[in-house]
């Protein structure tokens, strides 16, 4: 790591920046990434983090046990706010669970090669976030043992779920999303698991990495179909990401509740989800890259790029707030107008302004290069983004429910300590899973990183590289393409 970290920060349009620093070749990249899971002695910080996560996980388990054995009354959900923390937390987590597939699929389709350093951990984060999200609606149904009624399973009562309900769309959307993103994550990991298999020394590691790498041998015939399948999955996952949070937004927007029923909700929720997801990716990766010595792979430029995505999506969220506000006034609809005045000046104004500042104002700091490139500042902003996005869901759920059409039935929402502890506990599940992932699985997509290195295009040494890592095959200096016998 002797080479300056600022090496790829140049904005000179004449040369594309390198994505891998420190003069690393295939061998060094492989060693750097594998070192994370191969190290014999783990840093104390990992054990401390893992212990904290386990404690929180225990809190989650205790809260859920108490909830299931006692009843939904242990939460603060009550009329008029029948949707309280569980739905807020569900939307919060499922939103975070969008960045992984976005980085994998959307940035892949847009040929953003910098994604290769961060996509694996972002995908893992996605799956764990969706797991956290899934808990809340599942336990919110009350009688958890009947949660299978959500699925169209033939039963003795010959009843079927109601497909005209957005809550059922959610069941399909979130379970499809969980399935497809896990598959996408796993499939992308197969070649890297094979790397770990081939480097493993212990019997157990050889067995398990061997089992899950399915006998991958790097055959070019396999790579061809693998890449095509990956492309297809990316093309399928992209609209899927959009659909999932759109459908989550339908839960609110198909109703006629003021503040919920507004047509911009689907794209607005999607932008918010990507925004919060990138926030979480940044929150996790900034400490990880220094803890595991990945600064040459997840470079300052990578962090800067994420900061830019946060700026763009944060501005989209700000745009949506503006549209909601403007149209509420423009509509001339009194309840609609009241909903927004109530949000910003009513009893939950503190939550509204927390949300507004964290989501629409604070990310604007990313206009400054200094903030984008200073790890600590970027990290703080990313945490505030997470805070802001939780409050966004809180504001949407609570302000509209507590004060709707009928003033006589207005009220306040009072979360209980169990509400807070369950939410806190869900972080325990999330971080436990993530720390285990870091420990045992390849946290950077090695094969993909190798394929975006200049060496992958036959360029060795420090020769002239006008396109940096974007060297197209057609200008390969030494190779003349000959038609193959099969083509003739």
């Amino acid at each position: 790591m002797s080479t300056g970290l600022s090496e790829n920060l140049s904005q000179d349009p004449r040369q594309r920046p390198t994505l891998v620093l420190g003069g690393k070749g295939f061998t060094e990249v492989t060693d750097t990434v594998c070192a994370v899971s191969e190290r014999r002695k783990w840093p104390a910080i990992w054990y401390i983090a893992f212990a904290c996560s386990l404690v929180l996980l225990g809190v989650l388990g205790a809260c859920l046990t108490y909830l299931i054995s006692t009843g939904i009354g242990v939460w603060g959900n009550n009329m008029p706010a029948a949707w309280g923390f569980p739905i807020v937390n569900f939307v919060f987590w499922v939103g975070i669970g969008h960045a992984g597939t976005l980085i994998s699929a959307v940035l892949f389709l847009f040929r953003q090669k910098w994604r290769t350093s961060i996509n694996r951990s972002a995908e893992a984060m996605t799956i764990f976030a969706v797991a956290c999200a899934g808990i809340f609606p599942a336990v919110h149904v009350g009688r958890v043992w009947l949660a299978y009624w959500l699925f169209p399973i033939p039963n003795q009562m010959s009843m079927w779920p109601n497909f005209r309900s957005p809550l059922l769309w959610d069941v399909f959307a979130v379970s499809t999303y969980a399935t497809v993103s896990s598959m996408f994550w796993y499939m992308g990991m197969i070649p890297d698991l094979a790397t770990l298999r081939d480097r493993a020394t212990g019997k157990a590691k050889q067995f398990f990495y061997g089992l899950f790498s399915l006998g991958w041998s790097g055959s070019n015939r396999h790579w061809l179909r693998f890449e095509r399948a990956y492309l297809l999955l990316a093309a399928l996952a992209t609209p899927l990401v959009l659909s999932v949070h759109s459908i989550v937004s339908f839960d609110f927007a198909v109703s006629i509740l003021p503040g919920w029923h507004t047509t911009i909700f689907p794209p607005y929720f999607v932008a918010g989800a990507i925004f919060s997801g990138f926030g979480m990716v940044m929150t996790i990766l900034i400490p990880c890259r220094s803890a595991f010595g990945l600064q040459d792979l997840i470079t300052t430029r990578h962090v800067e790029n994420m900061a830019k995505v946060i700026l763009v999506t944060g501005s989209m969220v700000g745009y949506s707030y503006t549209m909601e506000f403007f149209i509420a006034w423009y509509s001339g609809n009194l309840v609609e107008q009241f909903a927004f005045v109530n949000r910003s000046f009513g009893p939950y104004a503190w939550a509204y302004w927390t949300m507004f500042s964290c989501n629409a104002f604070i990310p604007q700091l990313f206009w400054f290069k200094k903030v984008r490139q200073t790890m600590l500042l970027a990290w703080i902003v990313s945490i505030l983004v997470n805070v802001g996005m939780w409050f966004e869901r809180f504001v949407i759920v609570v302000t509209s429910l507590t004060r709707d059409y009928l003033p006589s039935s207005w009220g306040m929402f009072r979360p209980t300590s169990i509400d807070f502890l369950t939410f806190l506990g869900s972080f325990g599940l999330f971080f436990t899973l993530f720390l285990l992932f870091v420990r045992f699985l390849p946290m950077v997509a090695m094969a993909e990183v190798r394929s975006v290195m200049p060496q992958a295009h036959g360029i060795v040494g420090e020769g002239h590289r006008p396109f940096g890592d974007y060297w197209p095959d057609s200008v390969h200096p030494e190779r003349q393409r000959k038609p193959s016998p099969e083509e003739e």
Partner: protein
Amino acid sequence: MNHDTAPLWGMMAEFDNVSDTLAAAEKTRDAGFKHWDTHTPFPVHGLCDAMGMRDTRLPWVVLTAGITGALFGLALQYFTNAVDYPFVISGKPLFSLPANIPVVFECTILFAALTAFKAMLVANRLPQHHRPLFKKERFRRATQDRFFIVIEAADPKFDADRTRAFLESLGGLSVEEVEDR
């Protein structure tokens, strides 16, 4: 030349960079071998041309699966909500197409994505945990930083001595026999 008791499965040549591998693959292709492959630690672009491979039909399979998923989603909702268990909800018709689109969409994606993954595995004949190549110590670097060209003994043009000489002429780092075990 074969001193081992196990029968010969093939012959592998090792390279340490992309340019040499591409050049060698072109020569192997032009030499007329059929049962051979390249093993690389990442997908090397241009290698399919260099090897003279044909494109895959995977997209068609996935498209069919997607259409099947869409029809399944539609049929499921029609049957359950409009035929088998008719129940008027929020004044919507029993069969409400706009309200059915989200589930149709999710089914389309689910079917297509599962099929894409499954079809990739089937077409690649994965999982296949046993391969003679895995017994070779050097081959472990095929998933890390080395490139291999492997010609199988099953190839009609394969001849232990001449194939070894051919592979050695490609200028790689090493040439080794792969025993069938």
